């Protein structure tokens, strides 16, 4: 696909850290270098928290990196540039403008004559298949049509570089497939004014289907974990063996990174500062039961499991990760395997499960044990939530610490390790005698 190897957009040693109110700044991206070359679609893959969207925003000039730079046409980006357009995950359409006005709005900054702006907008609308919808308001359109407007708006500015931030992830499966195919057709037939595309996604199949090259990011902080070329001819067939091999390869890299990152986190923090993914006890229980039963009999590949459950791998990850943390299962090389404790858990009744969960929670989740210890130490048997919030925020950002605290609250309540009163925002000890 690559016409030339000319580099269009060059990220050099880009690092990003967000300042926090206290303690060390939070590192999101760690010295990342990559080049977007002419004629390619480059995919950025990674789990949530790997900073892939942040990287895309740096490439768009929407955020300035803490160090390093994005070079476009030989000069570092100082802000959004004329030749770069963005397609947003949430479409980001102005609800008060019609389809035509939305597309024209993208041209506002160019200072064109109105007739010229109108002509270019109409052209883009026509190309993207929105003819007849010019006077509709976004709220009258389905999700797929809305994202078409997002594409038309980006294309109308005739960008040299198109940046797409999970452009299909807010759409249902069928609509996403149609849009992907339509986009790839326009791309393959060179109907777009665009020379190169950078696309963020967490959908592995989508990445392999669309991209010429994949960059995999690891999490906390985001680093380039691997680069995988996709040398398949277009149009690509999901059922091809080669296609499947690449998908499997990507899964392997991703899950290996996941397991490693869980281990690394535990090594790094070793204390209550470990971020906990949000996974409800019901989902954990459900996954253990399914994993224990045939055909898996205690071991399953994550992608097979995800596909048979109709889930995205990204939805499955947090649950698998929590099972790994609690040592009910082991996550490695793209597979999830029940441990002995997990086997016992699967065979137990409700009361026993609760007991087992409680033991593992206190043993393997330092934060839960920490809260419990504090409650025992304090005379009233209660402690304000704010206390743990501040402790967590030494290690995590606001969002992660909130999520972690929420997860541990739910688990602690289920295991009856402690209680939590939202009215007073206090953790309480459960009286031993019940």
């Amino acid at each position: 696909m690559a016409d030339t190897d000319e580099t269009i957009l060059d990220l050099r040693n880009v690092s990003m850290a967000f300042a926090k109110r206290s303690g060390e700044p939070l590192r999101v991206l760690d010295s990342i270098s990559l080049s977007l070359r002419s004629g390619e679609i480059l995919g950025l893959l990674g789990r949530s928290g790997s900073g892939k969207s942040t990287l895309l925003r740096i490439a768009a000039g929407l955020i300035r990196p803490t160090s390093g730079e994005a070079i476009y046409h030989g000069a570092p980006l100082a802000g959004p540039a004329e030749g770069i357009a963005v397609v947003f995950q949430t479409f980001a359409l102005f609800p008060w403008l019609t389809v035509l006005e939305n597309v024209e709005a993208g041209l506002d900054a160019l200072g064109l004559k109105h007739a010229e702006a109108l002509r270019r907008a109409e052209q883009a609308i026509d190309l993207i298949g929105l003819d007849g919808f010019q006077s509709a308001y976004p709220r009258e359109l389905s999700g797929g049509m809305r994202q078409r407007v997002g594409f038309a708006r980006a294309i109308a500015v005739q960008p040299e570089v198109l940046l797409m931030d999970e452009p299909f992830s807010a759409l249902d499966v069928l609509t996403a497939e149609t849009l992907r195919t339509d986009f790839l057709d326009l791309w393959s037939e060179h109907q777009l004014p665009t020379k190169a595309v950078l696309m963020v996604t967490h959908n592995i199949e989508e990445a392999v289907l669309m991209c010429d090259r994949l960059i995999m990011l690891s999490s906390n902080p985001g680093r380039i974990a691997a680069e995988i070329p996709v040398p398949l001819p277009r149009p690509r067939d999901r059922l091809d063996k080669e296609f499947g091999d690449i998908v499997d390869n990507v899964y392997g890299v991703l899950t290996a990174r996941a397991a490693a990152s869980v281990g690394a986190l535990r090594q790094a923090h070793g204390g209550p500062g470990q971020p906990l993914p949000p996974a409800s006890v019901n989902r954990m229980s459900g996954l253990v039961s399914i994993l224990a039963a045939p055909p898996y009999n205690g071991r399953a590949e994550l992608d097979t499991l995800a596909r048979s459950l109709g889930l995205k791998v990204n939805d499955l990850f947090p649950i698998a990760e929590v099972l790994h943390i609690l040592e009910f299962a082991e996550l490695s090389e793209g597979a999830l395997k029940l441990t002995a404790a997990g086997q016992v858990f699967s065979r137990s009744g409700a009361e026993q499960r609760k007991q087992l969960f409680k033991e593992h929670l206190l043993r393997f989740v330092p934060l839960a044990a920490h809260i419990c210890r504090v409650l025992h130490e304090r005379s009233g048997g209660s402690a304000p939530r704010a206390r743990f919030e501040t402790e967590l925020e030494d290690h995590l950002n606001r969002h992660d610490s909130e999520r972690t605290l929420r997860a541990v609250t739910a688990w602690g309540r289920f295991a009856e390790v402690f209680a939590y009163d939202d009215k007073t925002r206090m953790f309480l000890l459960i009286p031993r005698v019940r």
Partner: protein
Amino acid sequence: MLAPIAAIHQPEISLSPAALPNYALRTTMRMLAALAASLLFTFTYGTLAAKSRRAEMVLIPLLDVLQSVPVLGYLSFTVVFFVSLFPQRTLGVELAAIFAIFTSQAWNMAFSFFQALRTVPHDLDEASHGFRFSAWQRFWRLEVPFAVPGLLWNTMMSMSGGWFFVVASEAISVGDLQIALPGIGSYVALAIQQQNLAAVGWAIVAMTVTILIYDQLLFRPLVVWSDKFRYEQTAAQVVPRSWIADLFRRTTYLRRAGDAFGAAAQAAARSRLSFLPHVALRPWHPPARWLDVAYALCALVGGAYIGRQLFHFVTPTLSRNDLIEVAINGGITLLRVAILIVIASLIWVPIGVAVGLRPALAEKVQPLAQFFAAFPANLLFPVAVYLIVRFELSPVIWLSPLMILGTQWYILFNVIAGATAFPTDFKEAATTFRIRGWRWWRDVMLPGIFPYYVTGAITASGGAWNASIVSEAVSWGPVSLNGSGLGAYIAQMTTAGDYPRIALGIAVMSVLVVGMNRLLWHPLYRYAERRTRLD
């Protein structure tokens, strides 16, 4: 600044009903002028507060205080000030009236705009940066449209509050300065002087017609138009309608005129109008602490200086006795407001719920309640005063209800809105589990409408404080009734032209209002917000 002013030539007010259309028109023009000023203020003040963190540190608390200062209290100061700017002419008096209406409207509009600017959706914000909008384009393309629904709602609230103040500010006497601007307010004032109950009736009719026309010609079409600025991406359940808007859409030449106007506005919004290059983004740094401290210090010193000047202005003439008198009066009015809010709640909450649960009825009652809220209750005062005089009732008790006459409707229509929005599945769940009687109120309905009720009660109590200035001391011809209280105190001092004591009265009332907001309403509001969320 406060030097006595020579008599101003003023047109005679006529009590003939035939003069009323002209008066109504003049009153309305004052409202419109104030509205224009309020919008201008909103766009500048709100933007400045939202864009500059340091400006916000001063502007927002200032707005909070200004909101609580009783408008009618400082009328005497502004009248004298504006008249001294344009002596010998009515322009100063007109400006004073407009300024009074402006101060009753501008604060909550600016607040609403500020809040909208703060909550502009992140993705739209990024899109506008990504497509390199200039600040001007961003303002008209993104920020103003996003703020429109909230701003329009607040404007309507302000306008309905405004009628009260325009009526009160048209006829006023400060010391030996007597002012009567041609308008409905002066008409009523003269009617009261001459004990002409029929003229009061005519004024009420004229006001009713004016408000109805205003609503139909201005606000209905605006509400229809603003519907497209809703941010939710779903279709509306109830589409607002207006015959004026339909007229503009269906009639060819009117539509052309509308389109031409729209195109001009579009072109203006589209032009870049930027003299500066696009602002490059910088990584966010924690702001420099010492600069903050220095800035806060400057603000504090400035505030202290103004406070000291005020203090010096007040102290020479005031003694401790004044303070005690004002405190006692403040206590009386506080007690009144509290009792009235309780009584109004006991009456209107059950009625509001009953109406709100019947959608067909709610649709008819809601506009009525909104109309009553807009109707300047001070036009009705003479009728009540006439009855009190006639039946020789005690003014201390019977003048009190006047305070809440105009503002109780905010409780009603907020409760109706809350009951209408109450989720059907909750209602059905309550029915299937046969939850009835007191339990139904306690566990189902009251928690459901609570946030709405609090919103209504805040507005009602704020309005009641303001109204106390015109309702605690009233007259009917030669008969003067004094219900005592802080409002009566301020009114008396205004008539006497005793500025230090007016200032003292206003200050105490502001403190009471701010205190009530901070200690009662804000905590209640936060509690309501926290308790009624599901996630």
